[in-house]
């Protein structure tokens, strides 16, 4: 029994890590008033880049760095289109995802040795290392405290992002820009810079999410490696009501469904695999419905008021 809990906990966290990175990235992006639906595509390009660079350079850190850069770059495209050119955020985000999915698939076919496929290659990967002392605890030791570096970094990142958002001057600016950019502008906060900065930062975290898939969780490249995690992350943002701490709960929940699915398949259930694969999406829909109902009553914990709306300083009469 103890082993079962340990193993479910381990897989939950491992599956939840990339979800949580992507969710945190989207939370910060949306807090600034920018909706980035390019999460799925950004993660996928991040995953492909991370693996390709790590494989050829045999340096996992170089792979990670490349994924972060590429994630930031893809978010920069979105930022330029939606903030500077004031393009529709939904259309731009969907375009980024379509573009990213295609690009990643192409990279997967051509960036293996000698221009061949990357599918099935063994590359460097982040290994799970038990933490000193904490790693010796029963149950949580071999699960929560035996993870890879990217997961450990996440343990630090969540409270930092929470503190930054609610307790610092910059977090205040971020929240204000997403809620009422005009008010922030009048008080001397640069709306454009703020939105660019957090959209790019969000993209970097999405790139990180992709890197964890190909270098940590799945340790290799496969077509459609993200498998809809980007979309789940967008749903998780709503589930978390734009709060980094609540995002953890969401990521654990969805990572857990993922883990259970593995266990059930391993136990040889007769339920078709397709149904198990459906569960996360089914829950996504359920959560969306629940939150939307709930929102009517508790409008005040809802989306940033200026989410999805381009900001134009009015120069009219």
């Amino acid at each position, binding site marked *: 029994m103890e082993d079962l809990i340990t193993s479910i906990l381990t897989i939950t966290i491992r599956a939840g890590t990339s979800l949580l990175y992507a969710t945190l990235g989207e939370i910060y992006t949306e807090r600034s008033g920018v909706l980035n639906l390019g999460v799925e595509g950004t993660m996928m390009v991040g995953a492909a880049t991370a693996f390709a660079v790590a494989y050829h350079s045999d340096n996992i850190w170089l792979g990670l760095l490349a994924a972060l850069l590429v994630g930031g770059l893809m978010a920069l495209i979105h930022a330029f289109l939606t903030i500077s050119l004031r393009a529709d955020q939904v259309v731009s985000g969907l375009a980024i995802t379509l573009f990213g999915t295609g690009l990643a698939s192409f990279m997967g076919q051509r960036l293996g040795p000698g221009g061949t496929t990357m599918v099935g290659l063994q590359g460097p990967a982040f290994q799970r290392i038990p933490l000193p002392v904490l790693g010796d605890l029963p149950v949580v030791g071999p699960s929560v405290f035996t993870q890879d570096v990217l997961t450990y970094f996440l343990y630090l990142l969540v409270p930092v992002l929470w503190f930054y958002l609610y307790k610092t*001057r910059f977090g205040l600016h971020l929240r204000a820009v997403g809620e009422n950019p005009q008010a922030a502008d*009048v008080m001397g906060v640069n709306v454009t810079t703020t939105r660019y900065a957090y959209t790019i930062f969000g993209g970097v975290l999405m790139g990180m999410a992709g890197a964890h898939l190909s270098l940590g969780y799945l340790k290799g490249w496969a077509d459609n490696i993200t498998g809809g995690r980007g979309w789940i992350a967008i749903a998780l943002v709503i589930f978390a009501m734009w709060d980094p701490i609540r995002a953890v709960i969401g990521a654990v929940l969805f990572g857990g469904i993922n883990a259970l699915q593995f266990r059930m398949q391993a136990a040889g259930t007769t339920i078709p695999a397709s149904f198990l694969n459906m569960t996360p999406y089914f829950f996504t829909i359920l959560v969306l419905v629940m939150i939307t109902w709930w929102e009517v009553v508790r409008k005040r914990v809802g989306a940033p008021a200026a989410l999805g709306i381009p900001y134009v300083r009015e*120069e009219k009469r």
Partner: protein
Amino acid sequence: MGIESPPSPAVQMRGITKRFPGVLANDHVDLEVYPGEVMALLGENGAGKSTLMNVLSGLYRPDEGEILIHGWPVHLHSPRDAIAHGIGMVHQHFMLVETLTVAENVILGLDTVGWVPRMEEVHRQIEALSEQYGLRVDPTAYIWQLSVGEQQRVEILKLLYRGADILILDEPTAVLTPQESADLSRTLRRMADEGKAVIFITHKLDEVMAFADRVTVLRAGKVVATLRTAETNKVELARLMVGREVLFRLEKRTCQPGEVALEVKDLQALNDKGLPALRGVSFQICAGEILGIAGVAGNGQRELAEVITGLRRATGGSVRVYGRDITNRSPREIIEAGISHIPGDRVGVGLVPNLPISDNLAMKAYRHPPLARGPLLDRSAMRDFARRLVEAFRIATPSPQTPARLLSGGNQQRVVLAREITASKGILVAVYPTRGLDVGATEAVRKALLEERDKGAAILLISEDLDELMQLSDRIAVLYEGQVMGVVVPEETTPEAIGLMMAGQRAEE
């Protein structure tokens, strides 16, 4: 106090000119404001008051002219620059972030508070300022919890916290009850006594006389006069502002009420947040009568109009038209029942801005002949219809095919009025019908409403302009937090008595 004592003005604007495409908003405007005085900037809508103050607060850049602050020439590129020079502005639409607290709004954008602001200290500083200037507000409250009057105090606190010594307020009393206005007037005086220069924009003559030491009158972008309030009067100011003699009284025949046209009984409804907005409203309006609804914005007026016109569900009570129950019927059934609606949001609800005027005018009549020919529209009949209404209601437009968005506010309202009056079968719900209109357009709208009344229409007039209500209404009902505080006859009451009811005091039985 005032002109003689301090030698150097806090603000000198010299030859300020600001052009917008097709409009000369400010034409070589000179303005001086001294420390320790309250100065009124008086003018009609579109006279250039707000533009001038937006130049001073760094939002707009002037095309010509210079600004001197305490004698030094400055270039203001942004509101941030302006505040660095001690200039702060309270806009008509508050610039507050609803989901943040009072204190968070106050320190927003300040870099002197450190990376991790110590909020307890900020709270103490805000409380001290509140005390000093009589601006009572809880620094830990969220903006969405506050009344409009309190939100305005937060806006002022934001400026004081930044050490502003030149304060600009854009139509500050538009959203306040008479009592809140009196409080504000005391705050302005206190700020002036502390040596600050206070400028407020207004088009209300009473306020100029009550609040200000001096007044500068703008008309069509130019300064027409700068006077001491002690040496002028309302009649003179009105003439300066409008450029001709102004009749303060509209001709109004005594009301000859007929049978009850619209009856609202114990009406209840929720607002957008799901909270009760109407809590048992009852009244009757007879044919040939105007019932005015007074109240501070947000006390259920909008919801009342929406429930009557079928745009919002009633959760209880009834609406009857000539005895027929139309509660919670569809807007179309209600239109057929004879109710016309002049909505408060002219551009968002009243018009389709991108469609031509002719289509906007036809929007209620199109279902029936002569505009409809079976399932098709008769375009030539629509053109004739539009031409007739454009002429009858004197809508100034290049052609009936011009998109409605290109018209001025006054002409847009004429389009709405023309359509609704033409479609009306006896009942008119008019919500803020003259809001944002200049004196000429306002007069036309009011005349049209009185004419309809004399023709036997029952009119529900919702307005935030007490003068307008007193002038037009045969009876005034005062709405406070979704309840009628009392119904009064304008000739038998005073604005102060209505003001008390607007603040929640019931009329003595």
